[in-house]
């Protein structure tokens, strides 16, 4: 399966009378987009705002971040099984409005998390400070149940990203990135001497605000399976996970999975990137056993020599991570696992809730308990009142000068466990 990504660089977003993409700027007719999103009767109102790199703007709380894309050719359309009908995606060409994002904010629960600072100290820790963001602020109808509220905000973000992506359908991109996965048989014939490597992508799947969807299927309900990496680039996996801002994978992370990107960069050169195994992180221990048994079995069956395993989230996913690692290593397949850490503010505490001697090759996304100082910014988009919860009540404290002392875990994407973040030991 071969996919071309047509990269269309975006430098700005503006509101305008006509929605279009022109000379690197996205123009959005807010009334038209609002009408589209308010087709959902669970939403009472929708407001939009724009946050650009370098502006003194804080977006808070953040539910999801989505990159606008559109399929130009090939089967299916973006976000199959959710926005578009079920159809196999991942082939043909997809245009990408690179440098832009849709950010949803919705106070689904009072303790909603996630901060994106567009400037200052906090901006260093999130990749989304570098993007031109259209922020979607949704207000639900009165008395809406939490599950319905979460779904409404999730769908609003995807619809907005899809609407904006479609503005680029007829643009001929100058820069093309090409990604191809061949059949197992062809891969063995083409690269008989290269080490075979699979990527085991663990998906959050625990319940309200902790879910992921694959072609519209709740990952909680799925057995471990294989998926083409390019299907993920076309939105086959979307995020319903919005707890633990620093290490939840936004839909943007799924679309731009850096492990997939780096494996493709080495594909056919130093390794044979065989494909992606997706597995879940259920609360029921028997499910954890089944899913990790299955991932290990798929690694063995695909005849891989090595597997990269990335987890999502905090706490019990550490157990899934170690189970996957142990069992895959038990099949004679070398693993490297990617995680983040909660090592206490001094970095001296045990980082994970689980461990095993087999996990001897670990890449960390950083220590989420690290304390940072966020400056006072001029504008907050979203729900400023959560600052008292994030700032004073739990994650940090509001200083007299309006700045915030908080743990790194409050910043969206700060310790991302695909490695899509800014922290490094270099």
């Amino acid at each position, binding site marked *: 399966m071969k996919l071309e990504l047509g990269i269309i660089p975006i430098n700005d977003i503006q509101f305008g009378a006509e929605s279009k993409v022109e000379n690197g700027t996205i123009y959005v007719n807010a009334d038209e987009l609002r009408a589209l999103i308010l087709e959902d009767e669970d939403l009472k109102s929708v407001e939009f705002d724009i946050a650009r790199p370098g502006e003194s703007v804080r977006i808070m709380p953040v539910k999801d971040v989505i990159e606008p894309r559109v399929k130009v050719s090939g089967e299916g359309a973006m976000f199959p099984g959710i926005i578009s009908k079920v159809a196999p995606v991942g082939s043909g060409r997809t245009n990408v409005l690179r440098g832009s994002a849709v950010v949803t904010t919705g106070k689904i629960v*009072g*303790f909603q998390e996630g901060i994106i600072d567009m400037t200052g100290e906090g901006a260093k820790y999130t990749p989304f400070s570098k993007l031109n963001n259209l922020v979607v602020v949704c207000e639900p109808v009165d008395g809406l149940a*939490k*599950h319905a509220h979460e779904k409404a905000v999730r769908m609003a973000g995807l619809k907005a990203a899809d609407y904006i992506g479609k503005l680029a359908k007829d643009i001929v991109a100058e820069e093309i990135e090409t990604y191809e996965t061949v059949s197992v048989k062809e891969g063995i014939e083409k690269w008989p001497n290269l080490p075979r490597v699979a990527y085991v992508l663990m998906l959050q799947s625990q319940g*309200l605000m902790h879910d992921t969807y694959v072609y519209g299927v709740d990952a909680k309900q799925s057995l471990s399976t294989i998926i083409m990496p390019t299907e993920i680039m076309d939105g086959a996996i979307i995020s319903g996970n919005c707890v633990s801002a620093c290490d939840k994978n936004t839909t943007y992370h799924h679309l731009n999975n850096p492990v997939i990107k780096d494996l493709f960069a080495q594909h056919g050169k130093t390794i044979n990137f065989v494909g992606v195994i997706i597995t879940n992180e259920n*609360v029921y221990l028997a499910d954890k056993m089944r899913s990790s048994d299955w991932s290990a079995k798929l690694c063995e069956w695909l005849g891989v020599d090595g597997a990269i395993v990335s987890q999502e989230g905090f706490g019990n996913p550490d157990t899934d991570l170690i189970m996957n690692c142990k069992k895959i290593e038990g099949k004679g397949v070398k693993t490297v696992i990617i995680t983040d850490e*909660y090592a206490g503010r001094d970095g001296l505490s*045990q980082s994970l809730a689980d461990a095993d001697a087999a996990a001897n090759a670990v890449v960390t996304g950083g220590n989420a308990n690290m304390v940072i100082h966020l400056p006072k910014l001029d504008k907050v988009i979203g729900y400023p009142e959560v600052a008292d919860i994030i700032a004073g*009540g*739990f994650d940090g404290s509001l200083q007299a000068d309006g700045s915030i002392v908080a743990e790194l875990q409050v910043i969206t994407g700060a310790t991302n466990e695909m490695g899509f973040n800014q922290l490094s030991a270099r």
Partner: protein
Amino acid sequence: MYKIITNNQLCLVKYGDQIPVEFLEGKSYMDVLLAVRDYIQKGWRLETHPMTGSLKPNQTPYKSIMVSNLPVDREEFYQQEVTIENGITACKKFQSIRQTPDWPEHLREDFRIVDLSLIEGAIQKIL
């Protein structure tokens, strides 16, 4: 037989007449972990992970955990003892950084709703 150990009244209200619930009224997240450890050490089987959800042990006041009296072999006994001890250690680690705030009722209700959703994934498998 399955049992839920919880300090979340929503769990008791919704499932109390379908599955045995040990309700630790007014007790803490740590109290739930310690009660579950007692069950494990008496030979009960751990059915859900003690650290469900991404809410931190010094953030959410509520925790629901499922156990059963199904057989446990020696290796499993060791594994689940390590699992609950790791959960207790993690809870202590977070509490030493900052204790769980005394949240207002509307936030407590939100935390109860999320905790219920997390344990429901397991309850639905055994009912």
